[in-house]
C-alpha cells in the first residue's frame, strides 16, 4: 500500500514545476535572444550617430544624417543596385537551373539518386572556400578556366579582376554553390506530389507541356516559393563569396551591402554609416523573412501531415 503511494508523484510539486519548467528549459535560448537583441539595438543607436573609430572624440548624435546622406550618395545607390542585381540574377538563374535539374532527376533510379547526392557536394563546400577554388581556376596565369576561355576565342578574359566580368564571375560561383539547394528542395517536392492527377492526364492523352504548366507547376508552387525566398534572403546578404573572391573590387564594382558595411567599419572606420547600411539591409530582409516564414510554416504543417 505505502509502496504504491510513494511511487505517485506528489500533485502539488508537480503543478509548480509544470508551470516553471518550460521557462527553465528555454531560458538559455531566451538569453541568446537577448544577447542578439543588445548588439542589434546598439546598431540602431550607432546608425543615428556620427561615429568614426578614428575620431572617437567627435562622436555625437546626428539623428537621421547617415540615412539622409544616402539619398545623394552615389556609392550608396551603387551598393543598392549591385545587391539587387546580384540577388535577382542568382535567384532567377538558380531557380531555373534547379528546377530543370530536379525534373531531369525526378524518376527514382539508382543513377538519379547517386547524381543528386553528388550534386550536394558544392552546397556542402564552404562558400568562402568555393570562391577560392574558383579563384584558382580563373587565375589569368595558369587557371584552367582562363585556358578554356582562350580556347573558345575569349583571349585575355579577366574573370573577377575586370569590372565588366566581375559580377558574372561571382554569380557563377554562387550558382555553383547554391543551385543544388533549390534542386534538392524541388526534387523532394516533386517526389512528394500525389500521382493521381498525372495518371489521369496520361490516360486522357494530355500533352506534356500542358501537364507541366497546369498540373506540375501549380502543385509545386509552395516549394518553389519557399526555396526562392530562402535563397533571396541569403543572396541579398551575400558576403563570403564576394569578399573571398574580390573583397568588393575591382574598385567598387561588387560592394554589396554587407561588403560595403564591412569595408566602412574596418577600413574607413565609419561606424555610423556602416550601421545605417546594415539597418537598411535588415529592413529589407525583415520584410522578406515575414513572407518567407508564412510560406515555410504552411509547408512545414504539410510535411508534418505526411509523416
Amino acid at each position, binding site marked *: 500500500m505505502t509502496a504504491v503511494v510513494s511511487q505517485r508523484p506528489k500533485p502539488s510539486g508537480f503543478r509548480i514545476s509544470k508551470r516553471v519548467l518550460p521557462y527553465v528549459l528555454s531560458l538559455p535560448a531566451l538569453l541568446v535572444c537577448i544577447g*542578439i537583441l543588445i*548588439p542589434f539595438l546598439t546598431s540602431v543607436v550607432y546608425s543615428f550617430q556620427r561615429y568614426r573609430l578614428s575620431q572617437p572624440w567627435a562622436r555625437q548624435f546626428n539623428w537621421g544624417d547617415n540615412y539622409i546622406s544616402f539619398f545623394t550618395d552615389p556609392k550608396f545607390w551603387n551598393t543598392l543596385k549591385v545587391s539587387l542585381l546580384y540577388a535577382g540574377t542568382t535567384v532567377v538563374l538558380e531557380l531555373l537551373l534547379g528546377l530543370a535539374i530536379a525534373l531531369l532527376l525526378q524518376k527514382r533510379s539508382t543513377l538519379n539518386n547517386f547524381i543528386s547526392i553528388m550534386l550536394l557536394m558544392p552546397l556542402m563546400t564552404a562558400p568562402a572556400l568555393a570562391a577560392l577554388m574558383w579563384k584558382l581556376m580563373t587565375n589569368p596565369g595558369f587557371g584552367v578556366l582562363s585556358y578554356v576561355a582562350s580556347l573558345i576565342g575569349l583571349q585575355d578574359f579577366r574573370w573577377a579582376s575586370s569590372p565588366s566580368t566581375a559580377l558574372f564571375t561571382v554569380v557563377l560561383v554562387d550558382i555553383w554553390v547554391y543551385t543544388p539547394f533549390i534542386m534538392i528542395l524541388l526534387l523532394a517536392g516533386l517526389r512528394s506530389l500525389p500521382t493521381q492527377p498525372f495518371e489521369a492526364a496520361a490516360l486522357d492523352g494530355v500533352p506534356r507541356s500542358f501537364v507541366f504548366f497546369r498540373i506540375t507547376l501549380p502543385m509545386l508552387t509552395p516549394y518553389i516559393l519557399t526555396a526562392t525566398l530562402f535563397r533571396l534572403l541569403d543572396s541579398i546578404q551575400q558576403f563570403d563569396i564576394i569578399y573571398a573572391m574580390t573583397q568588393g573590387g575591382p574598385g567598387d564594382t561588387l560592394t554589396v551591402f554587407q561588403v560595403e558595411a564591412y569595408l566602412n567599419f574596418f577600413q574607413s572606420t565609419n561606424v555610423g554609416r556602416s550601421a545605417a547600411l546594415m539597418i537598411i539591409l535588415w529592413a529589407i530582409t525583415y520584410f522578406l523573412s515575414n513572407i518567407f516564414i508564412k510560406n515555410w510554416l504552411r509547408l512545414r504543417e504539410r510535411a508534418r501531415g505526411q509523416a
Partner: protein
Amino acid sequence: MEHTSLLERILRGMALTLVVIFFMFPIVWIFMMSFQTNETILRIPPQLIFEPTLANYTALVTGKLMTAAGTLDIAFMRNLWNSVFLSVTSVAVSLLLGVPAAYAFARHKFRGSEDIAFTLLSFKFAPALLVLLPLTLYFQKLGLANTYVGLIWVYQLICLPLILWIVRGYFEDIPADIEYAYRIGGHSWFATFRKIALPLAGPGIAAAGLLAFIFAWNNFVFALVLASADKQPVTVGALAFITSSGIQYGQISAAIVLSITPTLALALYAQRYLVEGLSLGAVKG
C-alpha cells in the same frame, strides 16, 4: 510518361552529363592540383596526366614550406584544429542548450514561447554583420575579443536556431500519449524526457547536430570579424594563406582539399537528413 523517344533519352543524358561536369569539375580539378608541383600546375595548356606528389600535404602537415628563398612557416594545421575545436564545441553547447528548449517549445505551450522561437528564427535571416560589428566593440570591452569562448558564444547564432527548429519538429512527432503513459507509471518529467523523448527523437537530434556542425565549419564572416590569426578556422585561414604564400598553388589546393573533406564526408554520411535540415523541417526528404 513512358513513351520517351530515343532522341529525348539522348538529350536528357547529355543534359545530365553537362550538369554533373559543371558541378563536379571544380572539386575534381582542385583535388588534382593538390597532388601537383608548382611546375606542373603552371604549365600551359593544363595537364591531365602528371606524376602525383604528396609534397603539398607533407608541407602542410609539418608546417614547413621549402622555397627557393628559404623555409616558410605555415600555420594551416592550427587553422584546421581551430575549425574542429570551434565546430565541435559550438555544436555540443548548442545541443545542451537547444534540445531542452526544443522540448519545452514542442510540449508546453507557454506564454512567449512562440515569440522566442520566432525571434531566434528571424535572426537567423538577419544580416550577420548587423550583430557582429557592434559585438566587436563589446567584445573588446568584455575581454572576449579573440577568445574561443567569445567565438563559441557567437557561433550559437548559427547552431541554436537550426537545432531548436529541427529538434522541435521531431519532438512534436512523438505522440504525447507515450509520455503520459510513462508519467502515470510514476516517473518524473526528467526521467520521461531522458528515457522516452530523447531516444525517440535521437535520429533527429543527431541530424540537427551534424547539420549544425557543417554550418559552423563553413562559416566565414564570424571568425573573419572576431578572430585573429591564432584562433581562425580554415575558411578564414585559407584566405590569409593565399595572400601570404602567394604563389604556392599546390599547397593552397591541398589546404582547400583538407578543409572541405570533413563537411563533404559528413554530408554524404547524413544525406538522408539534409533535405529536411536545410529547409528547417519544411520539406521531408
